[in-house]
């Protein structure tokens, strides 16, 4: 019997007043808190008689430690960090400055290096970083300023009063598998806040609730996503220099799939590599983790990794939809930052700098709201305006139609992209439409039984323990851990669909697209198709792929008990 997580009813919840609650301690949330603190300090220095307090400003971070759930390649464009903390390079943990980039087009055994690196992928001036370490450092700076970061606490629900967001409810702790309070049960707190800032990363669960409740996305393109599967490797010296950046297109993907790989040289012979697969592929049997393993079989990668050791694994989704997929980002008592809003440049494959900038802009608006003691939609709308007149818009406007161009396949996409580059992003029309990724998924009946050209991407990877790993082995290296005795935080709204329809129509793709072996179809003679959906929620790495890719859209990811999740040390 699957019991799904939901806030316990009929229990008295502690109430805690707050001025500002930032949900999510990633780069956007931390930048917001830092900027807010700067503005308050400056104000207090000038206004000894009307001091503003930081006492009631909180950051909620679901991981046990700051940065623990942060995963990215990553390459940091320092533009916004330089605005936030001039001279930050002197104290921030940076692996290396980018020294050279190369873009390869791969076929199964060979590679073709693009003679010119396309402008969006030129990274001179950027830094190779570990986002986990960078955010940890940002967090220490936030704590120094006196803003409280609550680690191990998730935002479970938003609180409303009519059309106003009035706060956040944190997760209930100590609830058993059947949904009953255990002896150490602690109800989630109601943080009654003047302003709630959502910085949950891609496919934020509170953001999803908010967008759905107020139909915020009605005028926007549907958001589309990719999933990045990453491995961190220690390799013998001399293979790749710190700051060396490689992008690949093509193999192992076919023209039907969108995606590509990155390889970044970090310091101490640590290599970050990963494969991003657009979550709009047609064959439901495709397994993104398998795609990464196939990629590693290419001689370019095998030569790099031979004799090395895989030290960490992880996965995270990323929003590709671009400018047109961004919903309104401010409203009555709320603002949305970073990947939760969709501030990601899918041509440059960068979003961290945009997340940071959005955090700074939201902080300025939140500061005004604090001063005026007014956080109505009218006041918070300033954030929307700031974004639209900032370099966030400038940058994203130029690539506003990038991902949509690929809906018809690789060659169409390249054509549109080329056109967009010389028309300031317009291409054939100002706004290209988009379809949600899961709508591209075809039914098994429409596809060749043996997978055709995609066969090598379908189904689970078989590991050799040295270069290629099966999913369970990879998963072990994500360090993911949860309190075992709790309800499932992957909510399936109708398991009959899983057991009766999906098995036949799509072959249960959840088993394939989940990078963490959460979903399994087990034998069950009582079911019409002989199989039943079974979950291993404690394997979850919080990537949100299932919430995004499930063809029936019946999966809702909510945060599990705070403190649980992957351990992305060094990622």
């Amino acid at each position, binding site marked *: 019997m699957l019991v799904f997580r939901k806030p316990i009813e009929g229990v008295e919840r502690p109430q805690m007043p707050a001025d500002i609650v930032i949900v999510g301690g990633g780069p956007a949330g931390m930048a917001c808190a830092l900027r807010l603190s700067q503005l308050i300090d400056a104000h207090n220095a000038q206004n000894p008689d009307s001091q503003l307090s930081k006492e009631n400003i909180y950051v909620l971070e679901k991981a046990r430690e700051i940065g623990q759930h942060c995963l990215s390649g990553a390459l940091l464009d320092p533009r916004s960090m330089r605005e936030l903390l001039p001279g930050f390079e002197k104290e921030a943990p940076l692996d290396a400055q980018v020294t050279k980039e190369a873009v390869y087009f791969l076929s199964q055994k060979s590679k073709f290096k693009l003679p010119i690196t396309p402008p969006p992928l030129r990274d001179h001036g950027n830094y190779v970083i570990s986002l986990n370490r960078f955010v940890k450092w940002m967090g220490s700076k936030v704590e120094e300023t006196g803003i409280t970061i609550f680690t191990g606490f998730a935002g479970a629900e938003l609180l409303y009063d009519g059309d106003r967001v009035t706060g956040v409810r944190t997760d209930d702790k100590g609830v058993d598998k059947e949904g009953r309070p*255990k002896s150490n049960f*602690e109800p989630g707190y109601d943080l009654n806040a003047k302003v709630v800032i959502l910085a949950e990363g891609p496919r934020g669960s509170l953001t999803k609730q908010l967008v759905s409740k107020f139909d915020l996305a009605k005028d926007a393109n549907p958001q589309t996503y990719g999933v990045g599967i990453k491995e961190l490797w220690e390799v013998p010296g001399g293979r790749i220099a710190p700051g060396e950046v490689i992008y690949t297109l093509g193999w192992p993907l076919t023209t039907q799939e969108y995606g590509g790989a990155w390889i970044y040289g970090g310091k101490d012979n640590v290599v970050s590599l990963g494969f991003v697969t657009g979550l709009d592929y047609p064959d439901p049997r495709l397994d993104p983790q398998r795609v990464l393993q196939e990629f590693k079989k290419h001689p370019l990668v095998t030569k790099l990794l031979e004799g090395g050791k895989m030290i960490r694994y992880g996965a995270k989704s990323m929003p590709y939809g671009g400018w047109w997929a961004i919903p309104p980002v401010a409203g009555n008592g709320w603002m949305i930052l970073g990947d939760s809003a969709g501030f990601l440049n899918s041509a440059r494959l960068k979003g961290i700098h945009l997340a940071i900038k959005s955090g700074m802009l939201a902080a300025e608006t939140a500061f005004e709201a604090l001063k005026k003691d007014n956080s109505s939609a009218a006041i918070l709308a300033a954030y929307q305006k700031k974004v639209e007149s900032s370099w966030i818009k400038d940058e994203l406007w130029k690539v506003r139609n990038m991902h949509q161009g690929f809906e018809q396949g690789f060659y169409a996409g390249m054509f549109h992209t080329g056109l967009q580059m010389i028309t300031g992003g317009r291409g054939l029309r100002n706004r290209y439409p988009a379809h949600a990724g899961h709508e591209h998924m075809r039914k098994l009946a429409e596809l060749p039984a043996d997978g055709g050209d995609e066969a090598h991407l379908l189904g689970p990877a078989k590991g050799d323990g040295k270069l290629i790993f099966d999913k369970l082995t990879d998963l072990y290296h994500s360090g993911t851990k949860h309190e075992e005795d709790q309800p499932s935080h992957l909510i399936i709204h109708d398991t009959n669909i899983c057991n009766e329809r999906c098995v036949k129509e799509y072959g249960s793709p959840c088993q394939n697209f989940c990078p963490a072996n959460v979903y399994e179809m087990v034998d069950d003679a009582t079911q019409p198709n002989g199989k039943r959906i079974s979950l291993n929620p404690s394997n979850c790495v919080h990537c949100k792929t299932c919430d995004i890719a499930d063809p029936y859209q019946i999966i809702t990811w909510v945060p599990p008990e705070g403190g649980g999740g992957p351990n992305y040390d060094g990622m």
Partner: protein
Amino acid sequence: MPSANCQLLIYTDKFAARNSYVRSNVLKILVCMKQVPQKDAPLKLNDAATWIREDVSYEVNEPDAFALEEALRQREKHTGEVVVITSGPARSQQVLREALAKGADRAIHLEDNAFVGLDAFNTAKAFAAAIKDEKFDLIFTGLQSDDYGYAQTGVILAELLGWPHATIIMHIEKNETSIRVKRELEAGFFQYVDMPLPAVLTIQSGINKLRYATLIGIKQAKNKPIRKVALAEVQAAIGENLQKIERLYVPEKTKKTVHIDGTPAEIAKKLVDKLRNELRVL
């Protein structure tokens, strides 16, 4: 000439002074806690191969979390004060912060990198020196640490303080001036022991469900006092380590897998033969 009443007063005062913990109604408990590398953290050896490298994630030693939980429950039953103490570099303060967030009243941090390299004997000596002006009724430690696994510090501390002690404690009941504890023994046996106070107890893990820190607890923890004790303050009490890790290494497993073939009946006989004669488990 002192009246009989006076004499009685003098006698009572002397008695009370010797047993001053009786006079106060407050039960003061010290919980010794340690920060250890996270359970699943990949460990790397330092250059000298005598310890691990610092760049690893840390967490509270899980047995100590159970000791803290027990102390908090005792305080709830008897009113009192729970003080937590740890020794280690700045990062180990996290353990104290979490304890304060869960409800401990104050903390003592022997802060210095050098404390990491002290053996159990010296660690206990440092603790004893740091608490010499306090008057605790009970001192709890976890069963053992997840990094060293010696299970000694609590027992050594008891001897240094001249206090009675008991180990692997499942249950504590406090009476007026003494406690009755339940000791776990091997093979499913248990034993109750009556002990006077003050005493040192090492607490078994898993005896209670650990409580969660609440948001309010975390906020309040920021204002709870953490007394810092520098190495210099306890230097006089500690000496050279009495034992030395000559080398730390990854255990080599020279495993040669032996296949056992045949019919199930043959396999059974071969296995039993091995179990009996080679492995000596039968």
